[in-house]
């Protein structure tokens, strides 16, 4: 089809976590010897398309390496050919889909491409599509845009004429629709038709459906149509000899690529090139990438093993179809049952809490102890803790060590909570104060804490691994590096805004200082010296690569990019509308109608106009710039003005100027908007349970817990697609009815208002859709167990190095 240009949208990050740490989704290996993007490119080749553009996201080196000049797909040409069009501004994070703005950045490509039609398709669909047929159907339908999809789901694949596209690109900064799917779903003036793809097609977006799509190829009727001999899927040419089977092998329903050496048992799996499976190893329902080695007696179920993973003898690797066990490139997986970890942190609930960190430590340590990890936590013994718990704790030991030329003595106490040991370090001068933080010598206090932990490590341990949290523990890896046989460390960054900076002379003799900087940054030291790093969500991890988010530590983090993970925090099972004593009427997913009673109670308590048909938007938030308030004011004003049935409730405290602006709006709508300033002024659970929608337009949100709580209470989140919000909320798709909330990317008041209007429209006009969103929100898995499992995978990769 010489009249068609193909645009491959490879901008989607997906939710692959580790799998896309070093590659973009389109470059993910598939079915033993392909990569996902081979499908789009081969479909183009088979239809004779000779003009292809790829809009990549992130690290497209592996993609570039795979595609080369495009010769394999007949794209190595003088005229037209293959174009890779990266974002012009590499310093800014880009949206998760191809926007008209990005197209406009490369308007030259579109101007030069004289083909009459443009087909847009993601790089991560597994299908064998007849593009000629799609073009013909589009022409016949006389639609402006045709969407290609299957009965089962949407494929983000659209075809339109060049003229239509050029007009839209030219208007990118005028029209409120940022992407083609925006246009298709929301611009009623556009004439849209649907083209159904008859055969198999599956869009791959996360480890679970990635594994499932691979295993789909084992089904005869799917495998043979996707890898059709008439319209073959072409991949980069590689060489390996035929697979070799030794006499002990037993293989059933498995795809095996060249170069493999098979001695063990494999069932229902896909095995890529040059994999070695040794005697008595057992593999089931898994996908093994190139050069994986499975040693004698190892057992692997529901796993995705990345390239060059080595699974050591008799090691069990087990995931589930929903949560496959995923290794990373070159990981060595050994049997790691029964190891011990010590969390080092400045606070932990219920002993001491100033922020979310305390909850994370409590929840994570409990979940880990249930996983069979010997878990301990060490904290400073603050005055408040001593006052409350002096009767409860048990003396463990006394140690002395040199600190700035003086002999300092510490005592260590222990409280057991469940199976978790909480150790407390007592030191009068540094820790027994009224407040926890906020002293001039905070840096010195936590330098002392680090030294104290290093000193008692053998006495209260030993531990196989230290899990450090935030800047307070940043010096510990550097201190431990001076010792022999010190355990490896994982540093979790919960809040990058607090870094702990002091002058260099303060740490003279306390810490191995390198470089010539005048100031020492605790968090930066930790980033440079910890064995591995983690932060609180996969998207935030990616965002930290950009200075907009990572600020002064971007460079330090980029240097550790390969050792840096993002794991979404979980929330406790106790947060549950079914047994919440603080709300008017408990309810669960099977009694959603009772949520209405909570709404009435909330309206009453907040002195709002009552009514089930009112659209109640709730917010529980610190009132600060990064929470998105600057884009909220104007939007809220016009949204409330245009929609008399909308009510707004906020609980929070913070910036005075912001509060004043909110109050000004609230004064206009005394019966429709209520501000509760100060966190004690209302019960947040009443808002979580009583509101219809929960708003978080944050500019920055590393993880965010409120949206998870709201979702568990069946309150539909409307959030900006950033950090943990992007990882927990999926935008509702009006066609497939999939999605557990509403998201928007552009930090812009108008965009937020559009999204509020969408939510409002669905709430008013499509009750059953709204309920579907509520159900999907309630079913999302934000458990601590899930978080602990992901953290365990990181521990295992550290321990087997």
């Amino acid at each position, binding site marked *: 089809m010489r009249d068609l240009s193909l645009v491959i949208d490879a901008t989607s990050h997906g939710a692959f976590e580790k799998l896309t740490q070093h590659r973009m989704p389109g470059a993910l290996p598939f079915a033993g010897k392909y990569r996902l993007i081979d499908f789009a490119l081969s479909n183009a080749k088979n239809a004779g398309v000779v003009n292809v553009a790829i809009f990549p996201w992130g690290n497209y080196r592996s993609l570039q390496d795979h595609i080369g000049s495009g010769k394999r797909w007949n794209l190595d040409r003088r005229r037209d050919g293959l174009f890779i069009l990266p974002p012009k501004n590499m310093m800014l994070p880009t949206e998760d889909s191809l926007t008209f703005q990005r197209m406009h950045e490369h308007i030259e490509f579109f101007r030069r491409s004289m083909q009459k039609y443009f087909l847009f398709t993601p790089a991560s669909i597994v299908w064998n599509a007849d593009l000629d047929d799609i073009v013909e159907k589009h022409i016949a339908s006389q639609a402006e845009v045709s969407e290609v999809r299957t009965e089962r789901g949407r494929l983000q694949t659209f075809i339109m004429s060049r003229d239509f596209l050029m007009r839209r690109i030219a208007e990118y900064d005028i029209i409120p629709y940022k992407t083609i799917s925006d246009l298709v779903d929301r611009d009623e003036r556009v004439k849209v038709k649907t083209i159904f793809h008859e055969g198999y097609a599956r869009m791959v977006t996360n480890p679970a459906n990635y594994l499932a799509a691979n295993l789909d190829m084992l089904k*005869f009727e799917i495998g043979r149509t996707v890898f059709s001999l008439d319209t073959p899927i072409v991949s980069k040419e590689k060489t390996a000899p035929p697979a070799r089977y030794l006499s002990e092998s037993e293989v059933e329903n498995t795809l095996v690529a060249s170069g493999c050496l098979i001695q063990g048992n494999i069932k229902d799996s896909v095995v890529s090139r040059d994999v070695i499976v040794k005697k008595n190893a057992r593999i089931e329902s898994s996908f093994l990438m190139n050069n994986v080695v499975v040693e004698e007696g190892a057992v692997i179920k529901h796993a995705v093993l990345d390239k060059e993973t080595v699974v050591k003898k008799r090691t069990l690797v087990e995931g589930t179809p929903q949560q496959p066990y995923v290794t990373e490139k070159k990981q060595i997986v050994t049997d790691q049952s029964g190891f011990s970890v010590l969390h080092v942190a400045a606070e932990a609930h219920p002993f001491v809490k100033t922020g979310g960190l305390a909850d994370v430590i409590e929840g994570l340590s409990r979940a880990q102890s249930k996983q069979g990890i010997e878990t301990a936590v060490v904290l400073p013994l603050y005055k408040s803790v001593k006052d409350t718990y002096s009767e409860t704790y048990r003396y463990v030991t006394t140690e002395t060590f040199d600190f700035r030329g003086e002999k300092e003595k510490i005592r260590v106490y222990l409280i057991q909570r469940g199976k978790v040991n909480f150790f407390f370090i007592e030191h009068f001068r540094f820790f027994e104060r009224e407040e926890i933080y906020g002293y001039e010598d905070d840096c010195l206090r936590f330098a002392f804490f680090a030294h104290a932990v290093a000193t008692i490590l053998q006495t209260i341990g030993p531990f196989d691994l230290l899990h450090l949290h935030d800047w307070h523990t940043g010096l510990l890896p550097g201190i431990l590096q001076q010792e022999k046989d010190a355990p490896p460390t994982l540093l979790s960054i919960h809040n990058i805004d607090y870094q702990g900076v002091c002058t260099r002379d303060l740490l003279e003799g306390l810490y191995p200082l390198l470089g010539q900087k005048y100031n020492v940054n605790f968090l930066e030291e930790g980033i440079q010296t910890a064995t591995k790093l983690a932060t609180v969500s996969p998207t935030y991890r990616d965002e930290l690569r950009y200075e907009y988010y990572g600020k002064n530590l971007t460079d330090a983090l980029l240097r550790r990019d390969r050792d840096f993970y993002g794991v979404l925090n979980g929330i406790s099972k106790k947060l549950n509308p079914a047994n919440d004593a603080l709300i008017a009427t408990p309810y669960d997913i099977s009694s959603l109608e009772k949520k209405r009673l909570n709404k009435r109670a909330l309206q009453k308590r907040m002195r709002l106009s009552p009514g089930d048909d009112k659209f109640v938007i709730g917010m529980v938030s610190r009132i600060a710039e990064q929470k998105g308030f600057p884009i909220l004011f104007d939007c809220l004003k016009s949204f409330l003005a245009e929609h008399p049935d909308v009510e707004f409730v906020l609980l929070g405290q913070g910036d005075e100027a912001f509060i004043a602006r909110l109050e000004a709006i609230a004064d206009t709508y005394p019966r429709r908007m209520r501000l509760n300033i100060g966190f004690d002024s209302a019960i947040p659970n009443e808002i979580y349970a009583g509101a219809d929608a929960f708003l978080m337009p944050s500019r920055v949100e590393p993880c965010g817990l409120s949206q998870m709580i709201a979702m568990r209470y069946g309150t539909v989140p409307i959030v900006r697609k950033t950090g943990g919000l992007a990882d927990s909320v999926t935008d509702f798709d009006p066609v497939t009815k999939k999605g557990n909330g509403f998201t928007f990317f552009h930090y812009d008041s108008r965009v937020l208002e559009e999204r509020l209007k969408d939510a409002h429209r669905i709430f008013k006009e499509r009750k059953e859709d709204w309920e579907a969103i509520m159900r999907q929100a309630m079913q999302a898995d934000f458990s601590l167990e899930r978080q602990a499992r992901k953290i365990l995978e990181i521990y295992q990769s550290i321990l087997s190095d």
Partner: protein
Amino acid sequence: MKTETIAMVLVGGKGSRLRPITERKAKPAVTFAGKYRLVDFVLSNLANTMINTVGIITQYEPHSLMDYIGLGSSWDLDVAEGGVHFLTPYTDIDGEKWQKGTAHAIRQHLHFVRTHDPAYVLVLSGDHIYKMDYRDLIKTHEKKGADFTIGIFTPHDSLSRYGVLTLDKEGFVEGFEEKPDEPRGDYASMGIYLFNRDTLEKILANGLEEGFDFGRDIIPKAIAEKYTIGAHEFQGYFRDVGTIESLYEANMDLIDHPERLMLNDYKNLPVFTRSSNLSPHHVIKKHGIADALISDGCMIEGKIRRSVLSGSVIVKSGASVEGSLLFAGVVVGEGAKVKNAIVLEETVILPDTELVFETPTVIDNERLWDLGGGRRA
């Protein structure tokens, strides 16, 4: 930069003793180890040795081979300077240049050598199985200051099948016998030669009236004329598969002695082949595959023992394949039994057919029809 070494690869061999495998293709195009062609080895060696000016001298059934090699991109030989050149028989003012033997073939294409003006010319054969770094040969050649150097090896089997060399104390060639009944030397010639360019011109300039082969004619003559002839001993696995039996044995060597050719060892001289672009093979039922090499695109429901399967072979349920080589596209029907067979491309074996042989026997659709066990494709 002047090209140091160019290679002339002789691929015109009829492989008469490999019939009927070579009925419609030149010997270098014969399938080996499931997914390779014999010519892959020499092309890969050249690529690994960074010799990328290659003249490929064709004559017998050249089309499938030319198609297969194409621009040489599968071996990274498609470089801007040099690359793969097909040298076919041609006519000029002196008449038809039909090739009468290996040396004669090189002489017909000396113009190719002159165009590239190299220091050395490496003369190779396209149907040998070995992984070799030719730079070692060049090093030996330069160290000894020879006029030309012969690659030699110690064969596993009888020397009488080869050209046998005797060496003097310094390791120069002093005697040569072609396939002697009672060999006097210890080394066999691999049939690969590195010539100084002017030596080659000189040797080929005259004297071809009596004979046209390097082995039979040129080397004895060169010894007689007191050329300095070096010998480079190759230590690795080397096989010249001239017969059905030796082709079969070389394939079985891969199963019984994988350490010999080391096809899986890519770091050390990988062997490239043109990708047939097939999906990984699918083992459907658990009937036991043991001691087998299986290529992409196969679908296996039956039992496979000690066999080599090329691409897109289908073995249906209840079938058993033992001690056999199945070439690309072969179908073995339900319940069929195949033993000690070399089944050629696209052969369809009907259900419940028994093809059980004592010694390796070549089967294709024609022969199958005669045996009453197949159908015409």
